C-alpha cells in the first residue's frame, strides 16, 4: 500500500466515523483524477462537470458501505465514475453524435505525423482521436497513460483480469496510432 493509498484509507475511516471535513479532503485529492477521466470519456466540459459532481454525491452516499477488501478506495471511486459515464451514455445515447461532431473539428493539414508529434496540434489530434476509439480502448488509455495506473489497479477498476488488461492496452495504443495515421 503506497503513501497516497494509506492516506486515502485513513480519510475514508474518518468519514465513516462521521467526519464531514475528511470528505472535503478526499474531494480535494481525487477531484482532478475523476474529472479528467470523465472529461476524456465524454469530451464535453459541461458533461464532465455534471458527472463529476454526481460521482462525488454517489461516493458520499456509498462510502459507509466501502470496505477495503483488496480494492483501494481510489479504484473504487474510478469504478463509480466509470459506471456513471456508462449510465450517462446509456440514457442519453449521445455517443455516436459526439464522435461525429468531433470528426468535423479535426484539423486538416498536410504535415506528416512525425512532424505533428512536435507540434501543439498533436495534442488536439490525439485528444480528438481518442474519442473515436471504442469505449474499452478509450478508458484503458486514460487509466494507463494519462492517470499512470498500474495494471493491477486498472484490473480492479475495470473488473477484468490483468492479462486481459495487458492485451487491451496494446490493442488500444495500436488503434489510436492507426487512427492518427489514417487521418493524416
Amino acid at each position: 500500500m503506497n503513501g497516497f493509498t494509506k492516506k486515502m484509507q485513513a480519510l475514508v475511516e474518518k468519514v465513516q466515523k462521521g467526519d464531514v471535513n475528511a470528505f472535503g479532503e478526499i474531494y480535494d485529492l481525487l477531484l482532478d483524477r475523476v474529472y479528467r477521466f470523465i472529461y476524456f470519456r465524454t469530451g464535453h466540459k459541461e458533461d464532465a462537470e455534471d458527472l463529476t459532481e454526481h460521482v462525488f454525491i454517489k461516493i458520499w452516499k456509498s462510502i459507509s458501505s466501502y470496505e477495503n477488501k483488496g480494492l483501494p478506495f481510489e479504484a473504487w471511486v474510478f469504478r463509480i465514475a466509470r459506471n456513471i459515464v456508462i449510465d450517462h451514455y446509456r440514457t442519453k445515447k449521445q455517443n455516436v453524435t459526439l464522435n461525429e461532431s468531433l470528426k468535423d473539428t479535426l484539423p486538416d493539414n498536410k504535415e506528416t505525423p512525425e512532424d505533428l508529434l512536435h507540434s501543439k496540434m498533436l495534442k488536439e489530434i490525439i485528444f480528438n482521436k481518442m474519442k473515436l476509439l471504442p469505449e474499452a480502448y478509450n478508458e484503458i488509455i486514460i487509466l494507463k497513460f494519462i492517470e499512470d495506473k498500474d495494471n493491477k489497479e486498472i484490473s480492479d477498476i475495470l473488473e477484468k483480469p490483468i492479462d486481459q488488461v495487458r492485451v487491451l492496452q496494446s490493442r488500444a495504443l495500436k488503434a489510436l496510432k492507426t487512427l492518427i495515421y489514417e487521418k493524416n
Partner: protein
Amino acid sequence: MKKTDFDQDLIKTLRSFKTNENVNPSVFFRENTKVRLMNLISEEKVLENKSSFVFIKNPKFAFRLAGAFLIILVFISTGTILAAQSVNPKNSLYPVKLASEDIALKLSPSSFKANVAVEIAKRRGDEIASQEKTNSKSEIKHGIKKYKESIDQARILVPSGNTNLNHELEHEESNLDELTNKYKNSGQNENQSNREREVKGASDSESKQLELNTEEKSSEQKIQESPRPIETNSSQSIEKTIEETKTNVEHEIQNVISPQTSEESK
C-alpha cells in the same frame, strides 16, 4: 522517425495531458462544487441526526409507540394465558395455567377469593379425571397431591357461613377421598392419608394451619380481615377474573394514553 519513437512520443504526449489546463477542472468549478457538496452533506447529516433522536425530540410519539407496544404485549400475553386454561399437566402450557391461577387468586377481590380457590380445586379434580385415561399412576398421584393442596387452600378461604361454597368444597373433598382410596394400594403413603383424614374432618383449623406455609398464613389473615364474600358461584370464575384483570390493565393503559390522544384530537 521510427515507429518505436512515435510510440514513445505518443505515450509522452498522452502523459502530458495530465498537466494540461483544458483537461482539468476550473478553479470556479472546483470551489463551487465543493461548497455545494459540503452543504448537501451537512443538510443530510442534520436530517440523519433528526431521525436518530426522534424519540427524544418527540416524546409524545415515543409515548404513543410505547403504549401501542404495551397493548400488543398485553393481548399476546392474554391470548397465551387463555389458551393455557384448558390444558392438562402434560402440556407445556400447564405452568402458565398454574401461574395464571395464582395471579388470579392474588388479584381477585377478597370477597371473591374463596370462589376462585374452589374453582381451582375443581380444576385439579377435573385434571385427575382426564389423567386417569392416559397418564401413569405416579402422575395421577402427583395430581392428587396438587388436588389436596388446592382443597386445603380453598378450605381456608371459604367462610363457614357460605353454604354453597362449603357444599361444593365438601363434594371435592369426597372426590379426593375416593381418588385417594383408589390409588392408596399403588404406593400412596400413609402421611398423605392422614392429611386427607385431617382435611376431611377439619373442624379444628389449628392442625391445618400447621401445614400451611407462610404465604398461606398471610392469605388467611387477609381473609379474616376482609368482609364476607358475596354468595355467588360461577363455573367460569377464573376466566372472569382474568377478563377483569385484562380489562383493568387496558383501562389503566387507556388512562395513561388518553392525555396524549386528547391532545392529538385538539
